[in-house]
């Protein structure tokens, strides 16, 4: 058939020139004289972008006039819409026509209406405001007696529909599930699928109906319901295990050819349906032996029947999956893989490399890495380079046969990967060199080889290495040049000097270079080059370089100190430093007694400066330093120059260590401390379990591959022999007797370079302290209270402990906030009730049988009383119903305990019967840690009684909106078990507690926090006054007011369990300037969001 298509399409230009009508009965009806025809003709005749623009602009202005002209008939309008679709398709904005599309859908007859809907679906997006205008039309069409109109309405609903209007059409669509026509039922299911996509909560109650759709007598309806099930099962595979049997039966019928013949595609029975079913079974059977067993038969059958054709990459992909299970399988297909390796299509090549990556072992590593490097040299796409470079580095580290090979491979990685590669690669490499492995002589050889290799590389003239590579080189040379046993490092200093003078070297790299020079200087201090270098850079415009040069200069004056500071091969050792700078106490005291001003940290000075300039608009300044509270302390500029003047050599020495340490370490450890190396494999492994549908193709692929193999044997040439040679080197070690472990199990693989784990820990500790130390050393020039500063910075480390103490000392809820209890409650109860808005307390009577209302009210009070005993000192929200049916009603409320959020679900049994094995389960939610309180399992709920389930909830990281969902199961006497689902919204505020601290502590904490967010929000007149703003913040956000100074306020709170967040705010006219700081990077943002919501809301 496709031949025919091709033929006719090739004949197109000819047909077009003849200007004759083409096509069959439904073919080209539009005459060339029509407007649309004109447009199409115009478009086909286009030769340049410029012409196109002219034509379309002309067309658009014509259309604009036509659509708004009152004389335009609906028929013309329909044509206009098609022309507008054309214009938008070519990338021109036709938004003036959107409203007319909606009108056409509303007013047109059948085909016109359909085109109107079509235009709407193409023009508008989910959140477009005009979409609301369509709702009425949809509702009308859904109720139409004309099936075609109902179909259209259902189609548009399943394409695009405003979420907030779902309730308006939901009952209509639910009705359609019982329609006699399959097409209506099918489309109704698809519309519900759409709702499930955009608002899963709203269709929760019709899950039973989905089951009915799954069992529909029509294949189409059943197939449509699979989309919903696929999604639901993906979210919660355990909830649908009972359906496994049904899916298996359906698949059996499909595979067995029980469907009507018109579902066949090229004599394969409903292949897409099979795929969908296999996907679902894949989800259900994952990690579940028992469920999987149910499927084996049908999977086997599907595999046997599958006759899909294949594409080479696809085969490779399948093979890649298979190989994860059993590398020996690749042996059978060696020659095919080799073929693919030389395939002109780079995509196939890359897939092949992916496969080879998985079968790499210690014996074939060299060949495989060589192939990878070859590919790497050809490719230009950044993504591919990053990906491949990472793989090579990983393999090299794991299986390197010898030192020389390892260093050379890494050299290639660094030169090609350059500055795009993942920073982990150079960092791991350096760590590997530094930490070494078990055999010390081996370590030294590796290092020595690296040094030699870099010296050779640097000898080559006119070669530019990537910055990252230069950084690695300078670090290695600085640390391990001594291994060469030369008298002076003059030679390498010359090279480093040359690089330092090179304009193409970035200043970051220069810092690495000069750090290396400093280390080398300590080994041989009399060097002309160092002298020259110092001269050169002490007048450098780059302050960082200037500082380094000065440091070097001073260090050179005290050789002993320099040697003790820069010991040889001690990059992994911890260094003892007097971080409190206590030796300066005398100096400070002296200066203070002579009337020097006490030290103020950088941003305190900034702030004071700002408050003086308040009359002026301070916004621009605010921005300039709000981005990072640390810059002031880290900037090495003039401050450290000043410190040199003191002439205290010990101090300068200290500084130098810190400086150096930072250079060497900075990249290895981030702000948060040591970043553990991710097991590169994990990502790959997640996709490892082969999905069933892949296995269909696997078999066919295997067969074809085997066929190819056989052909090849027949026509063996010289070239073939070469390939076989390659094959034997690639697939060595894959045989069954091979000692190499299976791939994909990274941890069992014996690494060539095994790290010493203990060092990591000590090192990470060191970095943090080193990091802290830098903070001091830059502030050392000013006369200050160093003790305090030290306290601050260690506080950052011990933050948690300190805070715990703080919160222990003072009860979390001060009496003030307790009196404000109602408003807090209100806030949260709104949250709680927001999902089913019907269920607020006021309307409770509306939907409950009166008898049970009385009961529940009575019980509610008793419940409240009982719970209040333990919760009296805590705030709690109102009881809100979360779900109910004729037998039970489930309500929940929150208790904001000091240390956690306590959720209580109370089940009231409204029926006169006992409920058995009632069980409430909360689905594990990301970011929330839910702990069930003991004694919650209830074997029996007596008639007309209330039982509670209690859970404590902890949060892992800040969030804005959260949701807990779960279900309750129970069984009535002699009947089947019933399951009810529910969900409860959580707000960040549920986890925020006041933090009672003193102003002094506030100040200290404020300085120690690195993450801050600043924002000005406009508030209404009434709120502009400080007291009212303060009250809002205190009541609704549960902030503790630390102090109020003039028009500024200090507030503090903490995110449970103990992440503190501080707020500084200032009222300025009707603008509220908020400034959050916290030790957690995301908390300020999240709190700011809540704060804005609260301030705008009130």
């Amino acid at each position: 058939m496709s031949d025919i298509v091709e033929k006719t399409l090739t004949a197109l230009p000819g047909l077009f020139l003849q200007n004759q009508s083409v096509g069959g009965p439904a073919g080209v009806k539009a005459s060339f004289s029509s407007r649309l025809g004109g447009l199409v003709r115009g478009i086909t005749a286009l030769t340049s972008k410029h012409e196109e623009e002219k034509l379309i602009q002309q067309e658009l202005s014509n259309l604009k006039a036509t659509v708004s002209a009152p004389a335009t008939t609906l028929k013309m309008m329909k044509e206009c819409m098609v022309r507008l679709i054309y214009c938008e398709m070519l990338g021109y904005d036709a938004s003036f026509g959107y409203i007319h599309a909606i009108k056409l859908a509303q007013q047109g007859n059948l085909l016109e209406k359909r085109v109107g809907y079509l235009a709407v679906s193409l023009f508008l997006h989910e959140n477009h405001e005009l979409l609301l205008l369509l709702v009425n039309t949809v509702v009308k069409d859904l109720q139409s007696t004309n099936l075609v109109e109902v179909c259209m309405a259902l189609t548009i609903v399943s394409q695009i529909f405003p979420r907030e209007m779902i309730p308006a059409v939901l009952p209509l669509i639910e009705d359609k599930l019982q329609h006699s026509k399959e097409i209506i039922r099918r489309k109704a299911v698809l519309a519900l699928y759409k709702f499930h996509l955009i608002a899963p909560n709203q269709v929760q109650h019709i899950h039973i109906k989905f089951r009915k759709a799954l069992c529909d007598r029509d294949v189409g309806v059943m197939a449509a319901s699979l989309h919903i099930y696929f999604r639901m099962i993906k979210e919660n595979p355990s909830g649908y295990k009972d359906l496994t049997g049904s899916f298996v039966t359906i698949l059996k019928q499909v595979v067995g050819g029980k469907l009507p013949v018109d579902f066949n595609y090229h004599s394969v029975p409903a292949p897409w349906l099979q795929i969908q079913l296999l996907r679902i079974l894949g989800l259900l059977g994952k990690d579940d032996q028992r469920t999987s067993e149910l499927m084996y038969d049908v999977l086997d059958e599907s595999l046997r029947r599958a006759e899909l054709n294949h594409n080479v990459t696809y085969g490779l992909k399948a093979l890649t999956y298979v190989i994860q299970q059993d590398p020996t399988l690749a042996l059978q297909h060696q020659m095919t893989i080799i073929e693919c390796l030389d395939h002109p299509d780079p995509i196939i090549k890359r897939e092949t490399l992916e496969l080879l990556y998985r079968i790499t072992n210690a014996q074939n590593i060299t060949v495989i890495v060589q192939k990878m490097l070859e590919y790497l040299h050809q490719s230009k796409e950044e993504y591919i380079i990053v990906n491949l470079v990472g793989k090579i580095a990983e393999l090299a580290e794991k299986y390197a046969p010898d030192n020389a090979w390892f260093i050379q491979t890494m050299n290639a990685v660094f030169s090609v990967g350059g500055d795009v590669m993942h920073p982990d690669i150079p960092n791991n490499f350096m760590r590997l060199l530094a930490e070494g492995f078990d055999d010390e002589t081996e370590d030294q050889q590796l290092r020595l080889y690296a040094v030699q290799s870099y010296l050779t590389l640097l000898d080559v003239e006119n070669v530019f290495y990537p910055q990252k590579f230069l950084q690695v080189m300078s670090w290695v040379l600085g640390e391990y040049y001594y291994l060469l046993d030369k008298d002076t490092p003059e030679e390498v200093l010359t090279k480093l000097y040359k690089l330092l003078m090179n304009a193409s070297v970035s200043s970051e790299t220069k810092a690495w270079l000069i750090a290396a020079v400093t280390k080398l200087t300590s080994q041989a201090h009399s060097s002309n080059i160092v002298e020259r270098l110092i001269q050169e850079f002490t007048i450098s415009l780059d302050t960082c370089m200037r500082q380094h040069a000065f440091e070097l200069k001073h260090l050179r004056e005290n050789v002993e100190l320099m040697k003790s500071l820069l010991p040889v091969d001690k990059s992994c050792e911890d260094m003892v430093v007097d971080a409190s700078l206590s030796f300066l106490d005398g100096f400070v005291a002296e200066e203070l007694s002579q009337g020097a001003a006490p030290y103020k940290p950088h941003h305190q000075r900034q702030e004071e400066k700002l408050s003086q300039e308040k009359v002026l608009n301070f916004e621009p300044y605010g921005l300039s330093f709000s981005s990072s509270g640390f810059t002031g302390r880290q900037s090495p500029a003039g401050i450290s120059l000043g410190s040199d003047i003191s002439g205290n050599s010990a101090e300068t020495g200290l500084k130098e260590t810190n400086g150096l340490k930072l250079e060497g370490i900075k990249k290895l450890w981030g702000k948060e401390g040591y970043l553990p190396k991710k097991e590169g494999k994990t990502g790959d492994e997640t996709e490892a379990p082969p999905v069933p549908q892949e296995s269909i193709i696997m078999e066919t692929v295997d067969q074809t591959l085997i066929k190819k193999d056989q052909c090849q044997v027949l026509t063996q040439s010289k070239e073939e022999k070469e390939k076989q040679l390659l094959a034997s080197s690639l697939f060595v070690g894959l045989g069954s007797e091979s000692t190499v472990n299976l791939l994909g199990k990274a941890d069992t693989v014996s690494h060539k370079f095994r790290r010493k784990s203990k060092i990591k820990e000590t090192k990470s500790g060191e970095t943090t302290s080193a990091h802290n130390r830098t903070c001091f050393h830059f502030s050392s020039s000013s006369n200050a209270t160093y003790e305090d500063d030290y306290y601050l910075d260690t506080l950052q480390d011990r933050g948690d402990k300190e805070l715990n103490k703080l919160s222990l000392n003072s009860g979390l809820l001060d009496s003030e906030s307790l009196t404000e209890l109602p408003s807090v409650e209100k806030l949260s109860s709104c949250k709680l009730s927001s999902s089913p808005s019907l269920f607020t307390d006021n309307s409770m009577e509306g939907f409950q049988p009166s008898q049970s209302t009385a009961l529940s009210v009575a019980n509610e009070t008793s419940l409240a009383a009982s719970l209040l005993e333990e919760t009296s000192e805590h705030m709690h929200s109102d009881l809100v119903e979360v779900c109910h049916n004729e037998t039970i009603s489930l309500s929940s409320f929150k208790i904001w305990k000091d240390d956690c959020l306590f959720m209580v679900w109370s089940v009231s049994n409204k029926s006169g019967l006992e409920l058995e094995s009632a069980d409430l389960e909360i689905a594990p939610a990301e970011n929330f840690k839910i702990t069930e309180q003991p004694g919650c399992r209830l074997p029996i709920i007596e008639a007309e009684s209330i039982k509670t389930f209690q859970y404590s909830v902890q949060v892992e990281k800040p969030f804005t909106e959260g949701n807990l969902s779960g279900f309750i199961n129970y069984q009535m006497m002699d009947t089947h078990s019933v399951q009810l689902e529910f969900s409860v919204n959580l707000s960040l505020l549920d986890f925020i507690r006041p933090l009672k601290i003193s102003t002094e502590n506030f100040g200290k904490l404020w300085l120690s926090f690195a993450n801050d967010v600043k924002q000005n929000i406009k508030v209404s007149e009434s709120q502009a006054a400080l007291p009212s703003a303060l009250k809002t913040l205190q009541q609704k956000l549960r902030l503790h007011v630390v102090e109020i100074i003039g028009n500024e306020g200090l507030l503090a709170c903490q995110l449970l369990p103990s992440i503190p967040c501080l707020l500084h705010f200032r009222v300025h006219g009707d603008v509220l300037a908020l400034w959050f700081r916290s030790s957690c990077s995301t908390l300020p943002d999240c709190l700011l969001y809540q704060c804005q919501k609260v301030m705008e809301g009130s």
Partner: protein
Amino acid sequence: MIKFFLMVNKQGQTRLAKYYEHVEINKRTVLETEVLKSCLFRSNEQCSFIEFKDFKLVCRRYAALLIVVGVNDTENEMAIYEFIHNFVEVLDEYFSRVTELDIMFNLDKVHIILDEMVLNGCIVETNRARILAPLLILDKMSES
């Protein structure tokens, strides 16, 4: 999940574009140009599946017309590859030997057919008779 469905001719002119995720109009043109760059000059020898940014392209060529479908990572490329052919078969049946001009003059009908087959990026119908049924009724009604 299908992200978009494109029909483009040899000269790189778009003949049909349907997006299943909202993309701004100006970004569409940029995306289409990029997609074309990676698809248009592929020979028959080369693989029909292309990794493109964070998703995949499945393309199939019919004479001067190229159909490119962008799918996300979890989609089965073979299923889409065959689906394209299924779509062309449906067009072929409806237009009795479809040509590029048929598609141009009946853009609305082609869209209606596609809407029957794909919704929200999911393949929802592949049965030829069922796909065409609503459209044939529309045709019949507007004739009478």
